[in-house]
């Protein structure tokens, strides 16, 4: 873990923000171009996994602490459910696209298609948190190491 290559560290520091922005683009334009919440969320997570691999789990845990990743996961799931329940209240059935019925936007524009972008964002947030958590936990586990200590230092920071 100590002898990381300087080149890999510098290049990954430059690349991670671009990967992150690409993930955001895939999520936000999910209803206009190929992509959507799921692949976008995995790309967002992969930006942090790049940091995790190149600069260590301490640095990645500092950028996206465990508790915050868990909160992303929960929030995404709850927002998706809330949109579904709002559809039940306002549109008559669960998960109905009530916003599209109330305010039909111009097709092919960013603010169109009602609840679809909201759900895309929720799923993206959820997958981002979930995948990052899973990878972080798998990288903390090490044969003969002390996984509890690694987790604790990350939670404190």
């Amino acid at each position: 873990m100590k002898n990381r290559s300087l080149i890999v560290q510098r290049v990954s520091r430059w690349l991670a923000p671009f990967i992150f922005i690409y993930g955001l683009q895939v999520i936000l334009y999910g209803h206009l171009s190929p992509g959507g919440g799921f692949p976008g969320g995995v790309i967002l997570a992969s930006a942090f996994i790049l940091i995790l691999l190149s600069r260590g789990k301490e640095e990645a845990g500092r950028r996206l602490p465990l508790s915050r990743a868990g909160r992303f996961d929960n929030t995404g799931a709850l927002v998706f459910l809330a949109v579904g329940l709002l559809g039940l209240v306002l549109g008559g059935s669960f998960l109905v696209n009530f916003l599209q019925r109330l305010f039909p936007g111009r097709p092919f524009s960013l603010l169109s298609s009602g609840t679809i972008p909201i759900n895309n964002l929720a799923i993206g947030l959820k997958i981002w948190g979930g995948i990052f958590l899973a990878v972080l936990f798998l990288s903390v586990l090490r044969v003969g190491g002390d996984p509890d200590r690694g987790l604790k230092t990350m939670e404190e920071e």
Partner: protein
Amino acid sequence: MEALLTSLLVFMIIAAVVALATRELLSAVIALGAVGFGSSAVFLLLRAPDLAITQIVVEVIALVLLIRTTLHLSGRGIGEGPSGRRVRAAGLFCLAFLVSALFALPRLPRLGEPVMERIASAPSSFYLERGLELTGSANLVTAILLDFRAYDTLGEATIIFTAVLGALTLLRKKCLTSCPAGRELEEGER
């Protein structure tokens, strides 16, 4: 087009066989990655960019994870090669598959003709005709995933949520029993 697809599929089959037959763990993982990237290229050729993006992204993450977890195990073999009984069983399965494919494949529609086109009242034609008007989403795949079939997506999200939850719970438990501090804790209780 079909020649390209066929060569890609042959490449994937060879990579899958290598993944099964190789004795080194790391080579098996990398061959598995080749299968995944091949299928991503096939999706792209078949004009399914949504699937291709998802496949390649998940493949990269899975490959990185698998390589990372197997890296300090590399050099370690994974048992002996396939035994004679296994080879015979695989051969028998291939034979049964080929016989059933002989009957099934001629009935499949040609490449590029959707099965759903044969049925007039199929939902896919309805989605294609009125998807943009009903959902306002220019990307029809997203329209189906998050509007027409949003229940499916909710279930999928729940599955991932449960999977992450289960993985974290199991790993926490494993942490407790495998690390020195956890072992001391358990012995103290006894």
